[in-house]
């Protein structure tokens, strides 16, 4: 059975995206009588090139095989577990983006910094908590003051 390597996954995902965008490019308004080429031409050229390059990567990965691995192959669960810090940080950032308009800059940013610093630094000692709160409680108001009063930017 064929294994799903990085290159194969990349090529397949991109081919899917190319297919979806090609269909969507059908909705672009056709050229008027005075235009030699329409607005769909440039993106379609790029879609063809992207599709061809993705196909080449796929074919090459099939010819050369999955390649050598420096690390032992992991199951999806193990892979998720190994990268849990990074994924958790992405989730925290997504939550931050969602909560920013609801809670406002000060509360949302403070919550994001305290939680993400807790995630990365750890919460198992008093020293880590002091660093965490010192960084968060200094930076959040400082950035607010710089943007609001120095740069005249209203934060949410």
């Amino acid at each position, binding site marked *: 059975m064929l294994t799903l390597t990085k290159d194969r996954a990349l090529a397949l995902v991109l081919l899917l995206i190319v297919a979806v965008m090609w269909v969507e490019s059908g909705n672009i308004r056709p050229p008027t009588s005075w235009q030699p080429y329409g607005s769909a031409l440039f993106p379609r050229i790029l879609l063809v090139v992207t599709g061809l390059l993705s196909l080449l990567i796929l074919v090459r990965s099939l010819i050369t095989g999955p390649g050598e691995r420096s690390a032992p192959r992991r199951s999806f669960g193990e892979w998720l577990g190994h990268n849990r810090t990074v994924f958790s940080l992405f989730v925290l950032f997504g939550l931050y983006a969602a909560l920013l308009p609801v809670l406002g800059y000060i509360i949302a940013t403070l919550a994001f910094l305290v939680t993400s610093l807790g995630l990365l630094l750890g919460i198992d000692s008093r020293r880590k908590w002091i660093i965490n709160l010192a960084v968060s409680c200094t930076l959040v108001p400082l950035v607010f003051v710089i943007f609001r009063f120095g*740069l005249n930017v209203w934060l949410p």
Partner: protein
Amino acid sequence: MADFFLQALGQVSSPSVLALIVIGVLFGIIGGSIPGFTVTMAILVVFPFTFAMDPVSGVSLMVGVFVGGYSGGIVSGVMLGIPGTPSSITTVYDGYPMAQNGEPGRALGIGVAASFIGTLISVAVLVFFGPLIASFSMNFRPWEITALIVFALTLVAGLSSGALLKGLLAATLGLLITTVGYDRNSNLRFDFDIPALGSGFEILPVMIGIFAFSQLMGNLEKLRDEQGKAKGVDTSVTIPYGLILKDMAGQKLNTLRSSLIGSLVGALPGTGGTVANFISYDQAKKFSRHPETFGKGTPSGIVASEASNSAVAGGAFVPTLALGIPGDLPMAIMMGVLILHGINPGPLMFEQNPVLVGAIYASLLIGAVVMVLCQLLLVRWFAKISLIPQEILVPVVLMLCAIGSYALNNNLFDIWVLFVFGVIGYLLWKAEVPLTPLILGVVLGNNLERQLFRALELDDSWMTFLTRPLSALFLALAVASVIFSLYQDRKIQQNQLRAKNLPEQ
């Protein structure tokens, strides 16, 4: 030009702009000295602060970061043995052993002096060649500009060593991103019935998302182990000024050669400090009477490395200002900032914004002086700052990126753009897709489409691209760069195979 330069110098030497240059240089050195933070990240973090500034102030601040950033890598390279930026990798080869031999102050002093001279020589190159190239490229018409952009993209993609296909793919994806939203004929493309996509993506949140997330998350994965080295590092450094003057007096030719290599490499699209670093280090070793001392703490190695990577700063401005094609990744971000301030880099910039061009020259010169003073006076503090762990740095920079993206248009959608492209950038980085061609594609996409259609409106035959000599030359160079990269990829593969077949020692 002299009048404009004096006018620009007058603006740049006002107390507020001078203060911005000092802040920029300080921040650049700090950014460069923190392992994994890089010059590009420092520029990304600072750019939101330029929104409320006039163009001269904004550009001066950014130039300060640029100059400081390229010299900052030496601090962690010498003190920790970890290059602060990729462009100071070879600095570690001799800087770290010299520090280990009890001479960290000497290593830092030599590096700073070489950085200073490298920056000055590169400014001379910029002042001399920038206007020359710009006046030559004034003759370029849409066919030539289209072909030149294609050449620049293939060159950058080809330089992604061992990954030509992925480099080309990245460049195409970058171009594709710019096709979302209304085009120049007010036709809507790829909005998928989402109203927010109608206006397309802002370049800066896309660039920050792609670059910053992949870089920061990658740092989390890679640098934790390396920062273990930082524990117990002695940051008390004294600079032996007399010895450094003596060292530099014996390095005149090496400094000049390395600075010229840096300026030249910086001027080539997509190369940047890392390539300049390796080439000049290699050349210094070849020209040296004592090549065996390289890698053991010789001043020649530090000079070659630092003079060349700092000279990239001025060199990279040449294609950016003269042609509108960024020389490297930090310059692509700089170009985004210039566009944000309503300035379109390219041949016309020298005619339309001469004072701003002069301000860039003046900021580079003043920034170089400020850099030397800051580095020599505050090196102990920079050494301490370089010990900040990634665990603290990553969330803080992510927060600053989010606020910077929001502040661009006071629009929360831009934070989502940042997030989505952050995820995409991280996944592409995991799939070993080079991100520099992608970012250059995003920066150059709109111009490429505009020039292509202008050419086709003037003459609807595609053959014109091949019948106009300069356009044909650029396209031939594009094909040649792809063929050369294929050859190089093959060579790398063969070497790897050969190495695998060798019996283990």
